[in-house]
């Protein structure tokens, strides 16, 4: 009994630390765990890592569920429908029910599919999403890892998602899937160039590759966010960033790799049950990640729109609000724009987006060296 009593006291202590601790100095959860373990620092590291992983898993699955629900609702209302209405009040349990259904469905593998690649593929996008989620700065001290080359790391790992699609498409031995995989490979490689140029622009103007440092350069109100701090150019490169991430996420208007009307269901034609839901989950977690990156790079991360509203420990609320706005933007695009043709998509990237982002990168250098930006 006393054992449970101790644990209960410990949990109480932790909550006390979380709600009353000084978040402006360090993460109170980690600090409390370290306090418990005292000398044994290895144990503290392991426990902290466990807590972080559990939190990431919770964030990934919960956000995917919530996002799928909202996507269906938003799409419904944009098309004069209602969206899910039956499962629970206004259909709020719909995604839960779908998840349970997917979980219990038979995972069917075509006879001629390659066993290893077929079952490996669904995990790769998911793994990539988790690896990026670990460096997303949800708040000043709410970040699992803070590598010095944070943004480079994100750019490197983001390529994994496309890799998963390609080998999944190849492994399932279906010509529609293969076509879709090739398309998505071409798309990812092309748009990654412009995405990296947009990221490079922020690295150039902020002078940091560390995500927290990038956020700290945007301190002090809405006009210090990079989207407004660089007059006009910030807005333009924000638009480029949104377009390219939209392409990286394989969402309409760039959903050529899924193209239901042309390719069946694209790369996941042969996947069912839990393997399919892994792809699906990764897609939505990736959307969360892209929106978080847009928030981090352009919208001031966890800073409030006005410096007076910055309370230590509540930055994640601002972060969440901005991220939700970007996610709504993605919804809005998806349910408005028609799908591009493959040649139009390539044309747009290589003949418009790439030159334009190069010019904007050049201009950003000029702006910085001439001091044409707001603030100091």
């Amino acid at each position, binding site marked *: 009994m006393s054992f449970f009593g101790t644990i209960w006291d410990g949990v109480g202590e932790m909550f006390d630390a979380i709600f009353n601790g000084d978040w402006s100095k360090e993460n109170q959860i980690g600090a409390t765990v370290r306090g418990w373990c005292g000398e044994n620092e290895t144990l503290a590291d392991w426990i902290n890592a466990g807590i972080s992983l559990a939190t990431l898993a919770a964030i990934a699955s919960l956000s995917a569920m919530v996002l799928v629900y909202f996507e269906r609702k938003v799409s419904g209302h944009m098309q*004069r429908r209602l969206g899910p209405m039956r499962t629970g009040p206004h259909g709020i349990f719909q995604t839960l029910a779908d998840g349970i259904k997917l979980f219990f469905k038979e995972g069917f593998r075509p006879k001629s599919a390659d066993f290893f690649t077929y079952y490996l593929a669904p995990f790769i996008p998911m793994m990539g999403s988790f690896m990026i989620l670990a460096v997303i700065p949800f708040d000043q001290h709410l970040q699992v890892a803070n590598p010095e080359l944070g943004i480079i790391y994100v750019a490197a790992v983001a390529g994994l998602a496309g890799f998963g699609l390609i080998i999944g498409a190849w492994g399932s031995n279906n010509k529609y899937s293969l076509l879709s995989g090739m398309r998505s490979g071409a798309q990812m490689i092309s748009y990654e160039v412009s995405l990296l140029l947009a990221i490079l622009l922020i690295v150039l103007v902020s002078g940091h590759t560390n995500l927290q440092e990038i956020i700290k350069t945007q301190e002090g109100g809405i006009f210090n966010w990079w989207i407004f701090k660089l007059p006009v150019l910030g807005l333009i490169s924000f638009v480029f960033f949104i377009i390219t991430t939209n392409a990286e996420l394989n969402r309409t208007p760039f959903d050529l790799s899924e193209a239901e009307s042309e390719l069946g269901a694209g790369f996941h034609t042969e996947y069912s049950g839990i393997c399919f839901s892994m792809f699906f989950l990764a897609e939505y977690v990736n959307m969360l990640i892209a929106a978080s990156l847009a928030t981090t790079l352009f919208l001031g991360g966890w800073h409030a729109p006005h410096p007076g509203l910055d309370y230590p420990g509540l930055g994640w609320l601002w972060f969440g609000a901005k991220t939700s706005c970007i996610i709504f933007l993605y919804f809005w695009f998806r*349910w408005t724009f028609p799908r591009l043709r493959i040649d139009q998509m390539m044309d747009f990237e290589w003949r418009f987006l790439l030159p334009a982002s190069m010019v904007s990168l050049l201009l950003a250098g000029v702006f910085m060296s001439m001091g044409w930006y707001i603030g100091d």
Partner: protein
Amino acid sequence: MTEVDKHGSRPQNLGAFEREPEKQDEEKPKQGMIARYCSLIFGGTKSLLTGMKVTIFTFLNPKSTVTQQYPENKDTLEMKERFRGQVIMPHNEDGEHNCTACTLCEKACPNGSINVLPTKNIAGKKILGKYIYRLDTCTICALCVEACPFDAIRMGQDFELATLNKDSLELVLNKKEGRWKS
């Protein structure tokens, strides 16, 4: 009655779908390459923004939703005029209809769902005896309604047509023999 509601929903009757005659012999002023590039980009952006305006408008106006929560709102169910249910034959107050037993609808029906059984009145004139309509083979295509020159049949609004007895799907649409102005 307009053309549209007589025939149910027929796209070629809706003016919005009509194509405008293409303008010819109107040479566009020649643009330079850069001007064309810019106009492509700005024109494209503008058309995207127009689309976004439409979707955000419908999103922010839940009243524009057309979905009906059917079994719950059975009492307040609102039918659109273009909806096509089973074929009906309208009757006036005296229970008389408009059909002359010309059998054009019978010939127009691709499924043979209609049988017009004429009879003769005392004057020896051909009148409608029985108008037999088989709901089970009807595909609700409205070709019969289009074919009728006397506007005697129409597409109704009733859609709760399920039944346990297949024989009840063979209907006699006219209430009595003959026509209201013979």
